[in-house]
Structure formats: structure tokens, C-alpha cells
């Protein structure tokens, strides 16, 4: 494979040599990662390959034992999920990170609520609820997630797809550069999966780079611009869906086939 021209853009998010062990389990073993601007990068790998651990490190939820993370070419170290969020990396964690008994608005703004200006907000910590509701409504309708609806509904009364929609809306509502989605369609039926995939494409079309972890190969090959294949705690290949068949990708993922030479591609 020929070297690509040097005009390649800088990755928005990049990691080199990430290592993380939990006791004796090595969840990340020198994992590399590159996310290009405006792309949907799918991350595939067997159960326990370390995908969630890797994106948790990128999202500030797990502190790697070793390795480096670069955001827009600059080296960063995240101390908390809030830290990563404030730098534009939003994550929908596996199994969702919503508080089911809180309302849609509460969830959208959880951890970054607006307070009213002046003494009432400063001294009395009064939340600016009208502003949050208005923005919540705007975000949801921007994403086509809303007809007439009740944003004061508690999340647990929503369907799985609706919840996922709220989680995705939260992830891309705050001027984020990168949105990471860990198995967003895992618990959904066919139709609801469809909606979420469309939503993901929508978000990409707004210029946000997306990392999508999924076990669903047809989904991956349908919407990903590139596919990052993860195996035994590290990246073994990056392929383009147009240049590889699904079964070959799965074979690489399970170790039944050697990754193509010259990998990983950029």
C-alpha cells in the first residue's frame, strides 16, 4: 500500500499506546485510535475486546495506566468525564447514562445546568428553568426528535428508542466536536434502530465526528466511513467499508484472518 499524500487532515481525536489493566485483566494493551474530522468511525470487536474501556479512556471515565491522548493535535489528560465534555467530547456510555426518574430536560442538562443571572442564580443558586426548557425544545426539534411533546416527562416512561434519542440529543447539544456512542442500538428493535442510525447520520452531517461502537455489522457497514477493528485490547486494522467485505472484517476481528498488510490505515 502506498503512502498517502501528506495533505491528510489532523485527526480530531487520537490516542497512542493506551494501556489499562483491571487486576489481572488487561483491557487495553497498547491501543491506538484515530478519529478524522466529520467522519463516522465504527469500532468493532468481540465481547471483552476492550472497546468500552478504550472509549471510556477517551471520554475521561477511565484513567489509562499508560499512553497518550491528543485532541486536535494537542496532548490532553482527562481527569473526569466532565473534563472531556468541557473540551468537546461527549459520550453516550453503554447502557446509557441517563437518570431514569428525572425528566427529559433534567437529563439533558444534568451536570451542566444553567442558573439565572445575578444574585438569584449566584447566591441562591436558582436554576434557569425557562432557558433550559427552551433550549431543550430547540435541540430536540433540531434533531427532528420532537413533534408536540412533553419535555417534562420522566425518562423511564419513554421507549428504548426515545431514551436513546434523548441520550444522543444530550451528546450533541452542547457544541461538541466528538460524539462517542457505545452500542446505541443494542437494546432496540428494527424500527427504533433505524431511527437512531438516521439520527447519527444527521449529527455527522452537522460536522460532528462520531465514534460508533456496534456489534451489528450491517449497521456498521451501512453508515461508517471507516471501521476500526479491535482485538485483544488493541487496534489491529482500520478498513473502509467499500474496500472490504463484512465477513472479512469479522474474520479479522475474531483472529481467523490476518489483518491486511500496511495496517492500520489512516
Amino acid at each position: 500500500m502506498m503512502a498517502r499524500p501528506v495533505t491528510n487532515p489532523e485527526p480530531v481525536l487520537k490516542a497512542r499506546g493506551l494501556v489499562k489493566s483491571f487486576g489481572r485483566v488487561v483491557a487495553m494493551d497498547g491501543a491506538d485510535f484515530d478519529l478524522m474530522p466529520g467522519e463516522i468511525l465504527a469500532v468493532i470487536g468481540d465481547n471483552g475486546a476492550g472497546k468500552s474501556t478504550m472509549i471510556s479512556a477517551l471520554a475521561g471515565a477511565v484513567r489509562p495506566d499508560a499512553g497518550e491522548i491528543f485532541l486536535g493535535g494537542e496532548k490532553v489528560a482527562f481527569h473526569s468525564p466532565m473534563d472531556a465534555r468541557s473540551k468537546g467530547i461527549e459520550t453516550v456510555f453503554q447502557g446509557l447514562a441517563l437518570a431514569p426518574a428525572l425528566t427529559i430536560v433534567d437529563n439533558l442538562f444534568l451536570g451542566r445546568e444553567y442558573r439565572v443571572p445575578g444574585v438569584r442564580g449566584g447566591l441562591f443558586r436558582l436554576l434557569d428553568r425557562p432557558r433550559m426548557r427552551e433550549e431543550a425544545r430547540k435541540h430536540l426539534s433540531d434533531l427532528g426528535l420532537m413533534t408536540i411533546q412533553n419535555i417534562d416527562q420522566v425518562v423511564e416512561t419513554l421507549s428504548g428508542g426515545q431514551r436513546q434519542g434523548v441520550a444522543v440529543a444530550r451528546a450533541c447539544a452542547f457544541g461538541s466536536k466528538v460524539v462517542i456512542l457505545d452500542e446505541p442500538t443494542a437494546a432496540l428493535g428494527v424500527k427504533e434502530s433505524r431511527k437512531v442510525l438516521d439520527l447519527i447520520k444527521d449529527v455527522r452531517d452537522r460536522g460532528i465526528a462520531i465514534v460508533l461502537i456496534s456489534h451489528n455489522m450491517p449497521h456498521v457497514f451501512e453508515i461508517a466511513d471507516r471501521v476500526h477493528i479491535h482485538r485483544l485490547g488493541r487496534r489491529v486494522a482500520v478498513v473502509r467499508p467499500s474496500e472490504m467485505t463484512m465477513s472479512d472484517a469479522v474474520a479479522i476481528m475474531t483472529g481467523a484472518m490476518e489483518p491486511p498488510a500496511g495496517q492500520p490505515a489512516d
Partner: protein
Amino acid sequence: MASNDLPQFASTDTRLSRRVINVLHGNPTIIPLFVLVLGLAVFSSVVGQRFFHPFNLSLVLQQVTIIGTVALAQTLIILTAGIDLSVGAIVVLSSVAMGRLAMDHDLPPGLALALGIAVGSGCGALNGFFVTMIRLPPFIVTLGTWSVFNALIQFWSGGETIRQQEIEASAPVLQWTGEALRMGAARLTIGSLLMLLLAGLLWYVLNRTAYGRHVYAVGNDPNAARLSGIATRKVLFTVYLLAGTICGFAGWLLIGRIGAISPLGGAMTNLDSITAVVIGGTSLFGGRGSIIGTLIGALIVGFFRNGLALAGLDVLWQEFTIGFLIIIAVSFDQWLRRIST
């Protein structure tokens, strides 16, 4: 049941049952309120006019002042999916501290009062430390500290009661909460007013500040809260601290209520506070419940006791009825949780 149409947030399932469930989810105080109103209706028809007499109503309010205040503290803890078995001991320890500091150590009564409340804060901080730093289950921690605080009560008080006249002579401010404003036949004590004021304050904190939303989120799903960027341990610790402080404050109300300072003051407070919280619709599993519900819960306990007594029934039927109410409340919460997932 799941809507297949993601963009359509408007519930597509408009069946009455689902709508009712949604309403109950959004307004957890409806059921307790219903029970309270039903109870009032039944008692007034059985007992007659005496029940709604202003004097009787204000008497019930006095009777639930201590329980209500402690239940407010307990609500905060239970919202985080915890439980505090030491609240009753903190109340008494704080009141003993106020009395002893003012009497034995001749501190100015105002200072003794402040330090007594601070003792409550210290107890809460100790609970919070074990729960958040050592990560022990709240049940175990507070069972342990309940015993520790009780020992401190016995040690500090020497098992002796400080009599009403002594307090009246040297530290009347400690009894101030027992003073009553007369409005016709009603006697509204300062303590009852302070409890209502505190409830208003806590309602504001829980519903109108980010901290309050975080308390709910931590109780609802600590992992989700942490991943949302909430400092969960800080929230938990401050909840225990705040609860301890409120119990310290309740120590002051207790002195006003009984006039004297007794080391045996708050034996029933622990269970009664949990009862009020649970009957008020707050879930023992955390993240669900309200301050208003707890006030209603405390009133239900108060009015059922009072009404059953006025109806001439033996005390044992009060316990019997309250016990049933607890079981019904918890079953209802379980049911609501099950159908929503």
C-alpha cells in the same frame, strides 16, 4: 408498548392505564395526598366536629413537628438510596449538648445552641465519611453510629434529665421553639413554623437548584450520575452532613416540645421518620420522592394517630394501621418501579 416512532415523543400509547402511570410518575405525591384526604374524611365523619377543631389541628401539627423535621433529613438520605438509623440519636445528642454546654459549662445560651446544632453536623459528617470515603453501606454505618451516639448521650447526660425550670432560668432560648402563637383556638408553636420553613427551604434546594437535581440523580443511578460529570461522593457526603445538621436543629425543637432535656427523648423518632418518608411516597430505592410527600406522610402519621385516639381506639390500633400503611406504600412503589421498566 414501545413507540416505534422515535421522533414522536408524544406518547403514542394513549390508553388510560399508561396515562395514569405517567401521571403517577410525574407526580409522586398524588397517592399520599389522596390517603391524607381520605383519612381526614373518614375521621371527621367518625369523630365529628372535634377532629377539625382548630385546636386539634394545631395539636396534630405540634405532635408531628419533631418527626416531620427528622423525616425531612431522612428524605434527603433516602433519596440517595441510603438510610439513616442514627437520626433519633443525633437529635437527642444535640439537645443534650445544648443543655450541658449551657448549664455545666456556662456558655451563653445562643452559643450553646449553635454548638449543639454543630454537634448534629459533626454526627452527620461522621456518617458521611464512612459512607463515602470508606464506602460502607449506610445501613451498617448508621446502625453503628446510632449505638455510638447513644453511648455519648448516656455519657454526657449521666443519664439525667435537665429539668424545665433549670432551662427556663438560665437558657430560655432553648425553649423558645415551644412558644405558641395563639390564633383563636389554634396554638401554633414556633417549632412547627420553623419545621414548615425548613421544608420550604429544602423544597427549593431539591427542586430549584442543580445540587437538588444531583441528589436525585445520585440516588437514581450513581453510575449514570458520575458519568454525567456529577461529583457523586461530594453530593453524598453533603447529604449526610445536611441531614445531621437538620437533626441537630430538631434537637432544639425537641427541647421546645418537651420543655426539658431528657436522654430518653427520641426513642421512636428513627422509625417514625422512616415511616413518614415512605408513606409520603419516597422510594427506598432512591431517586424518587419529594419533600411535600414527606410532609404529607408526617401528617398522615399524625392524623391517623390522633384520629384513632379520638375515635377511642386503643394505641395498638394506631401501630396496626400505620404498619399497614407502610406496607401498602412500599408495595405501591415496587409496582410503579416494575411496570416502568
